[in-house]
C-alpha cells in the first residue's frame, strides 16, 4: 500500500481570507517573523499496489476534477516515501 499526497493551494492571485486570518493572529501571539500565510489543503490517498505512471495519471485526474477547482486552485501530486500507517508502526516499535 502506498500513499499519494495531493497538495491543493489557492492560486497566488486569488484572495485567501483564511490565510489572512491566520496571519492576523500571529502578531497577537508574539510571532513577528511571518510576513504572509496562504492556507491550502493536503489529501493523503491510499493506493493498493505499486505506484506506476498510470496510477499517477489517474491521481492527477482525481486532483483536477474533484480535489481542486482549476479556476481558483493549483495542485501538486507526490508519492509519500512511507505511508502514515508505516510511520505509526515504526514509531510504535521505537
Amino acid at each position, binding site marked *: 500500500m502506498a500513499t499519494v499526497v495531493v497538495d491543493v493551494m*489557492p492560486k497566488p*492571485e*486569488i*484572495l485567501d*481570507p*483564511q490565510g*489572512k*486570518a491566520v496571519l492576523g493572529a500571529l502578531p497577537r501571539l508574539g510571532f513577528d517573523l511571518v510576513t504572509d500565510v496562504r492556507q491550502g489543503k493536503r489529501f493523503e490517498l491510499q493506493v493498493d499496489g505499486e505506484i506506476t505512471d498510470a496510477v499517477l495519471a489517474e491521481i492527477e485526474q482525481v486532483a483536477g476534477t*474533484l*480535489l481542486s*477547482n482549476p*479556476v*481558483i486552485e493549483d495542485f501538486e501530486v507526490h508519492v509519500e516515501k512511507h505511508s502514515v500507517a508505516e510511520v505509526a508502526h515504526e514509531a510504535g516499535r521505537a
Partner: protein
Amino acid sequence: MKVGVVTFPGSLDDVDARRAVTIGGNEAVALWHGDDDLKGVDAVVLPGGFSYGDYLRCGAISRFAPVMTAVVEAAGKGLPVLGICNGFQILCESHLLPGALIRNDHRKFVCRDQRLRIERVDTPWTSAYAAGAEVTIVLKNGEGGFVADEATLDMLEGEGRVVARYLDDNPNGSLRDIAGISNERGNVVGLMPHPEHAVEDLTGPGTDGLGFFTSLAEKAFA
C-alpha cells in the same frame, strides 16, 4: 410551467424556493439529488444551503450528484436553470457558469437586505424586470465572493452576461460588484442573493424577488 427544485443533502431553501415558484404562478416539482430523472420539468432551480456540508468546496460534491448529470445535459439543450447562492456555487463547479465563489473578503457571514441592479433582462429568469431595475432582496452568504480572471470578467461584461450587480456596499468582495451571471445563451443564471426570500410582504424586505419566478410564466404565456 413545471419548475423542478432540487433537494441536496444540506439544502436549506428548497422549500422556500418551491413556495416562490408557486407564488410566481408556476407548478413546483420536488427533485431529489440521487435521481437522474428531471420528471419532465420545464425549468430547474438549484436552491441555497450547504449541500454536503460545503465539504471540500461549496458545491464541489453536489456537482457529481446523479441529478446534476441530467441538469447539465438539459441545460446544454436550453433548459432554464437558476442557481441561487449554493446553487450558484454548484453551477460554477459544474462549469455551466465561469468563475468561482470564494470566502467573503471580510471573512464574516453576511445576512442583510441588499440593493441590486438587474442588468440582463433577456433571460427566462429576469424578463419580468426592466433593464437597470434597482431591487432589494435578501443576501446571506459566507462564501459569496465571485472571482474569475480578468479575461473572463471582460468577456462577461462584453457579452452582457452580468445579470445582477451589487449597489451601495459590495457585501463579499465580488469582483466588479457581480452578484449574478448567466451563460452565453442566457438560460443558465447564477445569483448569490436570494429572490425566493423576497416574494411576500409578510416576510422579507418586500416582493422585489418575485420577478425571478414570474418571468417564466410571462414567457410561457407570451
